[in-house]
């Protein structure tokens, strides 16, 4: 039984990070002689403590630092500061011992194109010192489990994306690792394959294995993970079980409103409505607003209302707006969800 720990991890890339470790862009203001012009801070003091036997999810938007975290924990990224442990082994110092304990499924397929599906599994087993009989048995078992038996003797070049993904996961399980890392496991999978994958992950976990997965899919995080950390801009902004996290959002419901113009008076009245816990106006100068991609949504006239009821508030809000002669342009109600939690902590939606 092996757990995962990180302490104050920081990763700064001096140039664009590799695709596998999508980083968030933050331009350094340091003007020191040696300071590079554009540093990219991917992780900014991330501490995690994942117990053995847990399915743990790192949830966050693209560029939050999830893949960099996985990269550091799997020996592929050198932390700028801080430490990471797999079990008792410090990852950067004891790489070989760590590599024996982990199985890794990368975000992008990285199968060996010179080999057939079965050979990929057999050679992977050989790298981990399995004898030929154990290799063959385990490979057959996994090919069956992942429904790849019929294509086992074919080169993987012609495989569909979903098949490559399944084979990558089978390969990561080939040496029966204590910890399985899955970077965006169900990205690009059809719903049926996604369910198969979830089932396999749960099954593997029931054998006492620890699983760390990253996702920006809230449904997946909610359905699969026993605990979650929400990551944004390289920091851990909230951690707990999915239900604990959802309960931490004031009221649970979020009404995103857009008005024709700004009105401080209206803002105050909204606060006074029964069931409203918190009202937040978007600031135009928020770091999110600057970054272009989400400028269209989080403009100055948007207001988020956190409340313990949803639809029944709309008519009251509409009345307040017309009384203040402000046009109500857009309304979006969301029920208690991780999405709202993300919104609550970061001031922006995960999809923005």
């Amino acid at each position, binding site marked *: 039984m092996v757990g995962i720990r990180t302490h104050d991890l920081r990763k700064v890339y001096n140039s664009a990070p590799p695709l596998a470790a999508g980083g968030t862009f933050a331009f350094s203001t340091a003007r020191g002689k040696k300071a590079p012009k554009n540093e990219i801070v991917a992780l900014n003091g991330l501490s995690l403590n994942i117990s053995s036997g847990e399915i743990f999810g790192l949830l966050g938007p693209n560029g939050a630092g999830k893949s960099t975290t996985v990269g550091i924990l799997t020996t592929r990224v050198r932390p700028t500061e801080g430490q990471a442990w797999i079990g008792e082994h410090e990852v950067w110092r004891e790489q*070989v011992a760590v*590599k024996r304990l982990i199985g*890794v499924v990368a975000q992008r397929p*990285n199968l*060996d194109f010179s080999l057939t599906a079965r050979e990929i599994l057999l*050679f992977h087993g050989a*790298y*981990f*010192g399995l004898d030929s009989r154990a290799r063959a048995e385990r490979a057959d078992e996994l090919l069956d489990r992942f429904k790849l038996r019929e294509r086992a003797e074919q080169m993987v070049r012609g495989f569909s994306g979903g098949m490559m993904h399944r084979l990558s996961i089978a390969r990561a399980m080939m040496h029966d690792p204590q910890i399985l890392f899955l970077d965006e496991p169900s990205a690009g999978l059809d719903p049926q394959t996604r369910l198969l994958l979830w089932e396999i992950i749960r099954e593997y976990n029931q054998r006492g294995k620890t699983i760390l997965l990253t996702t920006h899919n809230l449904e997946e995080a909610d359905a699969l993970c026993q605990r979650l950390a929400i990551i944004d801009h390289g920091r851990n902004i909230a951690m707990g079980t999915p239900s604990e996290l959802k309960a931490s959002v004031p009221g649970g419901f979020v009404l995103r409103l857009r008005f024709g113009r700004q009105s401080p008076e209206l803002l105050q009245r909204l606060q006074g409505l029964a069931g409203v816990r918190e009202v937040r106006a978007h600031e135009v100068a928020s770091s999110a607003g600057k970054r272009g991609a989400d400028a269209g949504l989080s403009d100055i006239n948007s207001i988020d209302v956190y409340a313990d009821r949803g639809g029944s508030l709309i008519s009251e809000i509409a009345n307040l707006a017309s009384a203040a002669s402000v046009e109500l342009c857009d309304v979006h109600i969301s029920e208690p969800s991780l999405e709202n939690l993300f919104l609550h902590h970061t001031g922006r939606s995960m999809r923005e």
Partner: protein
Amino acid sequence: MNWKTFLALLGRDAHVARRNFIPLLLQTFLQPMMFVFIFGRVMVSSGYMPAAYKSLLLPGIMAISMVFTGVWAVAMPLIAEFQFTREIEDRLLAPIEISWLAIEKVIFGTLQALVAGLAVIPMAWLLLRPVEFNLHSPLSFAFVTLLVALFSSCGGLALGCSVDQAHIGLMFSMVLTPMIFFGCTYYPWSALAHFPILQKIVLVNPLVYASEGLRGTLVPQFPHLSLLAVLVALTLFDVALLGVGLRQFHSKAVS
């Protein structure tokens, strides 16, 4: 060091080479064969070249064949696997220090370069009969050949981890081609005596020592650099290229 893993990595490369045996064979031998035929047979039998040129040419062809094979065998897979297909990631996660993966590539490339180089001798003998070579010291020949093979695969490692996928063509036209033409492959180093500056400059080209070393051990009747100079230079190039190659490999493998 974990031998099981290391042997499995070698096994994987051997398996892939076996699968690609025919293309590999053509890629390795077609060019030297055509060289031997045109320069050694057509040019000589038509009288444009003296008969002795056949023997002078042999070590040069051998050096070219080894360098091409070694560089190709190590650099091309690395360029593709690091950049485009990321195939190498699975092996980087094998339970062994990642430097051993680079060394495994070098060993495999060295073996391929040795095969490619040694196969030139029977091929030349078949196509060029009679060709005079005089293997007066088999040990020094073996030593030089090994150093040349190592130089080609270490060079492959250094190039493969430094060259971007988009610049493969440039690597051949800017690095390998000038190296071959200024590498004393088609002529002995002493033939550059009329171009004294060029004669000094080409000494930075490791292929000069490779061709001259093979010339000195295989056809010593022609002028050649001293064996000691060749051994020292090739050893230095091998160590330097391996060092650069390993460093570049690490910077590619770990971000």
